């Protein structure tokens, strides 16, 4: 009706204004170009030919290798050329002029033009790489001039660790960046820069070739040329609106001047699980259950095991069949597994479920072809990559194909450059495994009963329909039935840009970037009739999501040096961004067959059992203006100022705009005269930065109260029907029209230094940041009703920390080595929440929420009871403050923290801290002639983990298996046949409580379930052999390497779970281990060939 018409009108207006902007810009660019094609000619005519001489020569490095693309410029003018492929140049200059010859990675050299018309120049390598160009913000700076806290990660180091995404490779490489990996193939890493700035979304912003994105997945890490992490506001605030959590800038590979290069890289590896799950075998589980019954005061009995003997010496007999329960014989001809008759005869077994669900030597492989090159006017870089990884769990895997083409061309005398960077990637996650699931294969390996075999006597999957076998899924059956589940994604990411020079003074750049994806997921639900709560109904769900984000950026920049000492650099720009994403899904049940060909396609399902849904996932727009100004005096005193104004559609128009300023100062102390005597310091730069950045990661429609007509919350059979519901309208989300930007103000002081002939480099930063107007989905009072809470600006959070990067490298003849490390620590504190400082509790599952976020503590601390030991006798239990009817020998001594003589909820307190004391990375490189050895490891110290799997594995929570600890470390009396009041301890140093079938109190969240998650992992050991000339000539290639690599060979940790790296979805529930896939020990063999 009218609504539809108005919407169309609006969309048209938007498109029109976007179109107008594009037209305007193109016109502007083109217009200036044409006008300057005329304008530049006259300036050349001003010089007189008589005065000039032509100087020629070759520019080479210290080994005599020519340097193509080196700059040869007449000092103080813009008269200059670049050397050609052979390093040759020719330049018309005035006699007596000074030539400045420079090249990236080398020290610039000045040469005076004398009587010689041939001047060859040899450039020395710049060990400090201070001329390295770094992309910061919308422009570039040389490392020499950076005043903010920026860490550059060497792309070669990054790529030395094979992984699915680059963020996984970043782990341990940069101080201040904490990365938690997901060991599942195709999984993405959680990236945190300098702690946690907010309670909602703490993900940093990724900028790839100038196009911002918040999704890091399915981009080929091998395309990365350089990666910078902008850590503090003075560097990141140029991205103002979304930079509060830091920015990671990635530049992809471009062609380099010189002969075209074609390379082929490949590796193949074998993966095996690094950790085993330790659960009991069938006989020991029987002993646990016997004792648990006995200590609960019951006569031990079980539907399967035969119990006899005494508690001092239990006799456990294992039946031949688990279905019929505990039977010695069975008439196997009675077997049936049909909806009308379920009699699935199953023999007993002693199954090690971890063995059944995992596989050794799961393959991981990667193939890549790269081609790149450049001429004077254009460059190109092309990559084609195929990556595939099977998980250490059976029937789970990932593969990806990606293709990239970057190219650029200069025309109109080098004044106009047009280019593009584009990549298309397709990836596919196979199989059904999700981390952190009660019934996933990892949890199942702990919980599924060992008496059960994988298959019953008829070869169907065996289930727990017998007595006392628990209610877990057969973990192998789950993996097998879900092996045809797929999640396929395609992604197109890139930008097209134009750069042009205006008035010979300004550079104008316009870039249009796009990030588009589509994802198709197929979730096949094959029934589990053998499952004790199972049925025969099959189903299948299909889902499609798609979305896009476009970014249109225009900048004008100015760069000039006055009087040789004043360097001025400035730019201003505007940027508009719009994103939209939607999804829909549908499902059907009761397919006639469960073969993949039938059940993958919905039409084959029963039309009477249909479900579907659809909605919008992303919908926002941003409009920003920004400016940056840099001034440097002789490279010694550096000043930078940034200001950015952002407006976001997520806030109401009254408050949707905010300004984010920043500045930073640098002082190159080593250039001062008083430092002349200090010879061991080659370069020392002090830096200070202050800035503000913003965050707007709230729902796209935060300002609106919304209603839903969905069945579950809103429908009711008001006509009394027993079959169908009348739909209604129920509030689904409350709105907050008054929300505004969250602001983070940060300070950073530090220094960068090179010492001892640049063999030692040290970067040190001390920083803090305060987030105010924290956007929080404050839990609303229950009396307001039941709907989603909106984000409200309330509260303040504070972080401070230190980052250190240290590197030493040296060369003795043919032997060289380097040792590097980084160290980062952060402290987080909530300064303020709402007016009552109401604490926020994290996720609660079967246990009450065990994380709390409250004022005066870091975010998401563990919360529960404090266990002080175990009662060794009845007398001890009686002397302790009462805790309902719980205190008894062998049970936990719970601390009476409020000292009132009674143990209850008020004695819950903060019991653990998931934040690490510090994280670190260590890198060691050794090379001798053609061989090099690299060792890299990283670790975390002081973080706690709540091992939720132990809630099931250590206690009699559900029927099923228990951990070895639950039996072997349990407190037991030395005289169990005696009355309880006379019990004495058999193992007073026991760490687990007495086994008790009726105990539901010991499993309440307490320090017993909190473990130290500190770990060190030797992530990479790599031995590389570089082909020498002999092999190169024999193979007809220009270079190559072969390498042998071991990943995750060693993990040192006290944590008893499968993986101390816990990645959670919400930052208010950190360190909660509900069953995470362990990392794999991998051996890889690889080959790199430079074909041409």
């Amino acid at each position, binding site marked *: 009706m009218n609504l539809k018409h108005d919407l169309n009108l609006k969309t048209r207006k938007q498109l029109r*204004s976007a179109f107008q*902007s594009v037209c*305007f*810009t193109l*016109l*502007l660019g083109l*217009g*200036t170009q044409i*006008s*300057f094609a005329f304008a530049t000619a006259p300036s050349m005519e001003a010089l007189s030919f008589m005065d000039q001489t032509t100087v020629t020569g070759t520019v080479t490095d210290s080994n005599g290798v020519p340097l193509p693309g080196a700059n040869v410029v007449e000092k103080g003018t813009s008269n200059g050329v670049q050397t050609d492929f052979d390093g040759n140049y020719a330049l018309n200059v005035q006699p007596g002029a000074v030539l400045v010859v420079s090249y990236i990675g080398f020290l610039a050299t000045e040469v005076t033009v004398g009587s010689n018309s041939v001047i060859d120049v040899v450039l020395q390598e710049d060990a400090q790489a201070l001329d390295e160009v770094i992309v910061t913000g919308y422009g570039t700076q040389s490392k020499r001039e950076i005043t903010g806290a920026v860490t550059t990660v060497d792309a070669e180091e990054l790529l030395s660790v094979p992984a699915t995404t680059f963020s996984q490779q970043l782990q341990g490489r940069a101080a201040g960046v904490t990365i938690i990996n997901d060991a599942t193939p195709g999984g993405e890493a959680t990236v945190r820069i300098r702690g946690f700035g907010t309670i909602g979304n703490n993900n940093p912003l990724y900028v790839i070739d100038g196009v911002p994105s918040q999704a890091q997945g399915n981009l080929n890490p091998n395309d990365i040329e350089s990666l910078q992490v902008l850590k503090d506001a003075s560097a990141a605030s140029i991205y103002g609106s979304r930079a509060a959590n830091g920015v990671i800038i990635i530049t992809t590979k471009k062609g380099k001047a010189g002969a075209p290069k074609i390379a082929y890289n490949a590796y193949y590896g074998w993966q095996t699980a690094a950790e085993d799950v330790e659960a009991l075998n069938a006989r020991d589980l029987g002993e646990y259950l016997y004792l648990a019954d006995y200590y609960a005061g019951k006569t031990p009995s079980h539907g399967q095991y035969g119990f006899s003997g005494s508690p001092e010496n239990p006799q456990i007999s294992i039946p031949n069949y688990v279905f019929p329960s505990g039977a010695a014989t069975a008439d196997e001809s009675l077997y049936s597994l049909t909806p009308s008759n379920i009699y699935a005869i199953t023999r007993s077994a002693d199954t090690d479920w971890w063995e059944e669900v995992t596989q050794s030597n799961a393959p991981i492989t990667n193939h890549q072809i790269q081609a790149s090159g450049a001429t004077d006017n254009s460059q190109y870089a092309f990559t084609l990559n195929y990556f595939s990884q099977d998980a250490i769990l059976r029937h789970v895997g990932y593969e990806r194909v990606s293709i990239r083409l970057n190219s650029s061309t200069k025309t109109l005398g080098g004044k106009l450059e047009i280019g593009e960077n584009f990549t298309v990637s397709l990836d596919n996650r196979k199989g059904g495994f999700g981390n952190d699931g009660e019934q996933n294969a990892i949890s199942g390996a702990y919980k599924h009963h060992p008496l059960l075999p994988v298959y019953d006597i008829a070869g169907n999957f065996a289930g727990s329909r017998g007595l006392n076998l628990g209610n877990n899924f057969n973990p192998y059956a789950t993996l097998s039935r879900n092996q045809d589940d797929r999640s396929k994604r395609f992604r197109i990411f890139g930008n097209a840009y134009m750069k042009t020079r205006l008035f010979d003074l300004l550079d104008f750049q316009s870039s249009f970037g796009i990030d588009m994806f589509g994802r198709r997921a197929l979730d096949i639900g094959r029934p589990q009739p053998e499952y004790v709560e199972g049925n025969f109904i099959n189903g299948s769900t299909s889902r499609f999501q798609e979305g896009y984000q476009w970014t249109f950026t225009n900048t*004008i920049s100015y760069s000039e040096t006055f009087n040789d000492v004043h360097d001025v650099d400035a730019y*201003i*720009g*505007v940027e*508009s961004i*719009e994103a939209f994403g939607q999804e829909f899904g549908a499902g059907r049940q009761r397919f006639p067959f469960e073969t993949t060909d039938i059940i993958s396609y919905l039409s084959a399902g029963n039309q009477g059992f249909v479900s579907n849904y*659809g909605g919008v996932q992303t*919908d926002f*727009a941003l*409009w920003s203006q920004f400016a940056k100004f840099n001034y440097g005096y002789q490279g010694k005193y550096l000043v930078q100022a940034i200001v950015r104004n952002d*407006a976001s*559609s997520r806030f109401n*128009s009254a408050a*949707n705009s905010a300004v984010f300023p920043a500045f930073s100062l640098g002082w190159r102390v080593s250039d001062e005269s008083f430092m002349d005597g200090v010879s061991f310091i080659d370069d020392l730069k002090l830096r200070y930065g202050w800035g503000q950045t913003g965050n707007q990661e709230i729902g796209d*429609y935060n300002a*609106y*109260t*919304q*209603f839903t007509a969905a069945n*579950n*919350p*809103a429908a*009711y059979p*008001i*006509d*009394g029907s027993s079959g169908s519901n009348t739909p*209604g*309208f*129920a*509030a*689904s989300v*409350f709105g907050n029209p008054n929300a505004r930007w969250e602001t983070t103000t940060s300070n950073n002081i530090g220094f960068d230094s090179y010492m001892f002939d640049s063999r030692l480099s040290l970067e040190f930063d001390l920083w803090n940041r305060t987030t105010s107007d924290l956007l929080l989905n404050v839990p609303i*009072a*229950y*009396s*307001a*009703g*039941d*709907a*989603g809470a909106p984000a409200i600006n309330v509260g303040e959070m504070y972080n401070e920390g230190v980052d250190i990067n240290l590197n030493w490298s040296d060369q003795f003849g043919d032997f060289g080595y380097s040792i590097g490390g980084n160290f980062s620590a952060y402290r987080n504190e909530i300064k303020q929440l709402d007016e009552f400082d109401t604490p926020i509790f994290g996720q*609660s599952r079967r246990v009450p929420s065990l994380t709390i976020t409250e004022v005066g503590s870091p975010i998401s601390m563990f919360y529960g009871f404090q266990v002080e030991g175990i009662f060794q006798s009845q007398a001890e239990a009686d002397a302790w403050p009462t805790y309902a009817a719980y205190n008894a020998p062998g049970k936990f001594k719970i601390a009476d923290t409020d000292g009132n003589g009674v143990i*209850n*909820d008020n004695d819950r307190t903060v019991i653990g801290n998931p934040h690490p004391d510090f994280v670190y990375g260590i890198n060691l490189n050794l090379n001798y002639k053609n061989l090099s050895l690299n060792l890299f490891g990283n670790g975390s110290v002081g973080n706690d983990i709540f091992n939720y799997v132990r*809630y099931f594995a250590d206690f*009699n*929570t559900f029927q099923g298996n228990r951990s070895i600890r639950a039996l072997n470390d349990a407190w037991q009396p030395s005289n169990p046949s005696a009355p309880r009041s006379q019990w004495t301890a058999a193992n007073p140093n026991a760490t687990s409580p007495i086994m008790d*079938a*009726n*105990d*539901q109190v010991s499993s309440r969240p307490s320090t017993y379930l909190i473990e130290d998650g500190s770990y060190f992992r030797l992530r990479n050991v790599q031995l590389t052999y570089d082909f020498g000339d002999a092999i190169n000539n024999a193979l007809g290639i220009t270079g190559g390497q072969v390498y042998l690599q071991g990943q995750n060979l060693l993990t040192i940790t006290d944590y008893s779970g499968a993986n101390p790296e816990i990645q959670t979805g919400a930052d208010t529930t950190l360190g909660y281990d509900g069953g995470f896939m362990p990392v794999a020990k991998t051996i890889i063999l690889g080959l790199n060939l430079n074909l041409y």
Partner: protein
Amino acid sequence: MKKFFTYLTALSGVALLSVACSDEFLEKEPKGQITSAALNNVDGIEGKLVAAYRSISGSGMRGGGTWFYDVHNWIFGGIASDNALKGTDAGDQPEHSFIEAYDFTTFNVHIRDKWRSVYWGMSRANDVLNSLEAVEGLSAARAAEIRAEAIFLRGFHGFEAQKHFRSPAFVDETQYDINDLESSKVPNSGQIWDKVIQDFATAAAGLPEATGSSR
């Protein structure tokens, strides 16, 4: 001439940079979601009333299992009164065992969700009452009926609240405002039987003795 052209393009460039995108670019109204304004009609109010009835069905709240606040009260009535034995494994819904043993803790999720459900229902009923005035096209007779039904539902939830909790707060439509999250923070002050009785009386006065099954 050339210079003029260049200055012109330069000025347009500056103009481009300072001209903002149209305001509509930054206005994103919810898509696929229904806003309050769209519900100010007969369909809207009838739908909100149906959703208010939903609150007595014992399920439909976000994040809660259905048994916690089932209107048949089989946990708080059946199990707590020893009419039913909880059974099953110790670790399966231990909250029932604690209720069975009268061991009430603040982190017992089932007790918490019973509390939530009471106000879930009251807030829906209050929202129906608040929305009645703005509705166009509703007959006076039907409006009176809707009012009575909503008041009955609110009274029912007040009844549940008083049965389970010593001194619950009672939120009525003059206090409740769906757009103000602070409005429902009404202090409690002892028992609310009088308010419950008054709601039932008002509802009874506004509703017929019996309704046919074809409503």
